[in-house]
């Protein structure tokens, strides 16, 4: 399939069980570089800033759907080193507001076929997500969302306390629970994936279609003439392009400042993630605690992967502080009193591009040829394929796809708010 595509200038291993078998017999000599390490060209038809999930998926869809193969992805460090490499990998489309629901559901469909699409096993495991409810009011509020999901043709189940108990026997159902379990909202098709594999899979598939992935290529400035972007200054020299897409999550304000507009409806906050030591299968779904800040799933390696709320103040640091960790575990222990004897293996943080209504921004900007994709808050991972699909469309066609036509930068001024949590313009609360 790949070989038939224009611009694919090399033949790579097609990954398969047979090829793995061959590797075992040949001392693994049969494997080639997963993506090339090219020198930057002088000019590209489009450049994406940011070699994370969003940037790589956008490059892939530009090449695949829009036939643009003379394109590059500029990554200041190593591919997949930002939020795609430090998130808790939850994939879901359990949104209430229609714009979000439709977008994430498109993403969900792309996730379901991603491994075959990329010929890379991203390990999307549809183990479901359960939002545990702790009051009748919360059950009603979850039901409102679940009903909206059903009416938007997205899978959702409202679980009783007994059903939750069956699926999550380790929760606190005792009379000592401060907030008893009332039930839950489940999206069975939701799940988790292997986050690094998503970055590598897109990098490989984009590279196969001719995309140049430029690692250690930090953008230091924009060349803009008469309101039209002309190219980029980078740590690897000047690179020309009339189309530039920005997909840099928490660093959006910094990059946009280089292009002359730093005042955005957005703040950078850090979110911590944690992983326990690996254990045998313990929890078979993603679970979130409705009465505190805690969510958890288990990776294929066996570690419990969990997190909670933002640390709560503007930050560009990829490391967290302890009060937030204590708070997460306090919630975790209140929900699952048996986890006290497990151990925390690592904790770290990612920088989130928190928008003013908690929903994304994707579209054109005041600079011609410069496109912005940002504001994904802590939901950017699950958005990857749909972002790639829609942002590529936006860049190639110079107008948004219908799925992202309401994610505009000027919606805040118009009052078109996509505020799932109803917290208002306080980014740290979304």
């Amino acid at each position, binding site marked *: 399939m790949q070989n038939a595509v224009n611009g694919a200038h090399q033949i790579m291993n097609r990954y398969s069980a047979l090829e793995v078998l061959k590797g075992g017999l040949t001392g693994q000599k049969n494997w080639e570089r997963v993506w090339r390490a090219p020198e930057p060209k002088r000019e590209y038809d489009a450049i994406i800033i940011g070699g994370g999930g969003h940037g790589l998926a956008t490059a892939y869809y530009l090449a695949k759907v829009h036939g643009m193969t003379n394109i590059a992805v500029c990554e200041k460090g190593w591919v997949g080193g930002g939020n795609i490499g430090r998130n808790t990998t939850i994939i879901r489309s359990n949104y209430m507001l229609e714009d979000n629901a439709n977008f994430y559901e498109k993403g969900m469909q792309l996730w379901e076929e991603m491994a075959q699409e990329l010929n890379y096993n991203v390990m999307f495991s549809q183990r479901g997500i359960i939002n545990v409810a702790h009051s009748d009011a919360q059950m009603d509020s979850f039901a409102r969302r679940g009903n909206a999901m059903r009416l938007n043709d997205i899978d959702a189940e409202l679980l009783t306390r007994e059903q939750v108990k069956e699926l999550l026997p380790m929760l606190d159902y005792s009379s000592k629970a401060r907030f008893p379990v009332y039930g839950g909202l489940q999206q069975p098709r939701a799940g988790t994936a292997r986050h690094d594999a998503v970055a590598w899979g897109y990098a490989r598939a984009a590279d196969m279609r001719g995309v140049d992935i430029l690692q250690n290529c930090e953008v230091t400035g924009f060349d803009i003439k008469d309101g039209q972007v002309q190219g980029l200054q980078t740590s690897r020299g000047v690179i020309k392009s009339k189309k530039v897409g920005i997909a840099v999550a928490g660093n959006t304000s910094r990059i946009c400042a280089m292009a002359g507009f730093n005042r955005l409806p957005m703040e950078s906050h850090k979110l911590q993630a944690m992983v326990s030591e690996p254990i045998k299968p313990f929890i078979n779904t993603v679970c979130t605690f409705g009465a505190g800040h805690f969510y958890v799933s288990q990776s294929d390696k066996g570690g419990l992967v969990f997190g909670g709320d933002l640390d709560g103040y*503007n930050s560009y640091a990829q490391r967290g502080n302890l009060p937030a960790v204590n708070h997460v575990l306090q919630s975790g222990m209140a929900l699952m009193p048996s986890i006290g004897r497990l151990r925390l293996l690592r904790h770290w943080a990612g920088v989130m591009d928190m928008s003013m209504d908690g929903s994304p921004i994707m579209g054109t900007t005041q600079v011609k040829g410069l496109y912005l994709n940002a504001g994904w808050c802590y939901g950017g991972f699950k958005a990857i394929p749909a972002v790639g699909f829609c942002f590529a469309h936006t860049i190639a066609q110079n107008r948004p796809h219908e799925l992202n036509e309401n994610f505009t930068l000027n919606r805040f001024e118009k009052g078109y708010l996509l505020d799932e949590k109803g917290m208002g313009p306080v980014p740290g609360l979304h």
Partner: protein
Amino acid sequence: MIRINCPWCGERNMVEFTYGGDAINKYPGLSEETTAEQYFEFSYLRDNPCGPHLEYWHHVNGCRQWVKVKRDTLTHEVLATGPADALLGGEKE
């Protein structure tokens, strides 16, 4: 653990405070002359710098005063603190 020097209580742990957000934006004032755009900019747009940042912290578990803080968003170093109306250096009036 970020330590904030409350002008009234002295240096305290961040857990005594709640974060009040951006203090770079100036309130446009309640008057008929103020435009909707000014309110929009105040409520929605942020400098969001990577580096020194002016922000408010509310000493809720202390003196309940809003404290102005200049803090580096990359290193979390607290560079200066003062009362809510203090000018902490490098600030436009």
